[in-house]
């Protein structure tokens, strides 16, 4: 009998209604979104918050905003529950596996909360498409989805600048990068728990504030609740990254690199923040070069 982890790897996430990522909806649904929210380009947390504030009486906008958040929560359930199984194969503390199980349950509650808010507007799950660029669940997909939620993402910025983007190519590149990092517990925790969930703090605080401004108590309270959970998720991530990197500068640099890569991917950085990241990447490249030269010299020495 095969191991559970092998079975899961060969089982893509399925749910009913099925994943219907924004990048793959048909022309009729695009037209429908244009009629309801002004176009697919607005279907992300940041834009939807602005639209809800601009037209508080329009319930359809609230439904779309909550749906865009809820789809990321569904992806979160899949991502963290897979970690519970996959990470049992890795050399990580048992308490980290338990923490991932707790986070899975948190994501379930978040999805339930969003579902409740959505239903309070007369909406239903599946009425709006998923905000994720890919069609699969998993950690990589969650990174993309919530990254867009938290900051608008590089795709949106390029669209705003009138530049051509290829969502499929971008999604593939991001998914590949995400997958590579997700195979390492330190990088995965740094990227997902610390950077991504840290960014989600802004999303949930902003959404709760929208609820307060438009007099929507349920929205205000539910997303404030989500915000508090995200603080715990960041704390969990930071605690275990510290534990797994303790006394090992190389591992700590890996954690920093994962955090930096995720921030670059998410975009929405100021010029100063971009400069700091560029300097960090330049230093990392230099280190890599030095390491290669060192290895080369060692190898040459070995042949003499």
């Amino acid at each position: 009998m095969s191991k559970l982890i092998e079975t899961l790897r060969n089982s893509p996430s399925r749910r009913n209604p099925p994943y219907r990522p924004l990048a793959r909806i048909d022309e009729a649904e695009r037209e429908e979104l244009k009629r309801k929210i002004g176009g697919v380009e607005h279907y992300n947390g940041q834009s939807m918050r602005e639209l809800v504030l601009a037209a508080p009486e329009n319930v359809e906008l609230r439904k779309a905003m909550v749906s865009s958040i809820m789809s990321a929560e569904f992806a979160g359930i899949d991502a963290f529950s897979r970690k519970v199984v996959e990470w049992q194969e890795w050399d990580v503390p048992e308490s980290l596996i338990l923490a991932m199980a707790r986070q899975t349950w948190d994501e379930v509650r978040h999805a339930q909360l969003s579902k409740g808010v959505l239903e309070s507007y007369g909406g239903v799950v599946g009425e709006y498409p998923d905000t994720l660029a890919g069609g699969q669940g998993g950690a990589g997909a969650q990174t993309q989805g919530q990254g867009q939620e938290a900051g608008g993402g590089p795709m949106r910025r390029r669209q705003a600048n009138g530049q051509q983007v290829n969502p499929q190519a971008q999604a593939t590149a991001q998914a590949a990068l995400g997958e590579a990092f997700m195979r390492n517990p330190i990088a995965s925790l740094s990227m997902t728990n610390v950077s991504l969930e840290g960014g989600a703090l802004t999303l949930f605080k902003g959404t709760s504030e929208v609820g307060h401004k438009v007099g929507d108590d349920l929205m205000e309270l539910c997303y404030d609740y989500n915000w508090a959970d995200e603080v715990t998720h960041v704390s969990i991530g930071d605690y275990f990254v510290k534990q797994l990197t303790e006394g090992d500068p190389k591992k700590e640099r890996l954690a920093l690199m994962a955090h930096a890569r995720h921030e670059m991917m998410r975009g929405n950085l100021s010029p100063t923040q971009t400069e700091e990241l560029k300097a960090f990447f330049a230093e990392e490249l230099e280190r890599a070069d030095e390491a290669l030269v060192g290895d080369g010299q060692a190898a040459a020495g070995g042949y003499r």
Partner: protein
Amino acid sequence: MAYVIDLKACINCSLCRRSCPTECITYYRTGHRTHVIQPEGCIDCDICAQVCPVDCITFDKSYVPDPIKLEAAKESARGWARKRRQEQLTAREAAHVVIAGIGAGH
């Protein structure tokens, strides 16, 4: 006076770094996973302490700022606030244009 982060309590969520109007909080400079407030850029606005979800930011009364650097930091914060305000106004106007379009479609 300048604000300081208690590195033992900090969870590295970066919320302070994203909120700082003088952008004087760094994360990648030291090579360690530590958020550090550069005191010469701090204008004691208290925003970082207010947004910190684990209340790990306090102030160091003993720090005496250089008046010239402090004024430069304040000017930087004014520029940041103007830019942020402009971005908010632009986003709000864009939202109203979209809303008008939705209304016209009905």
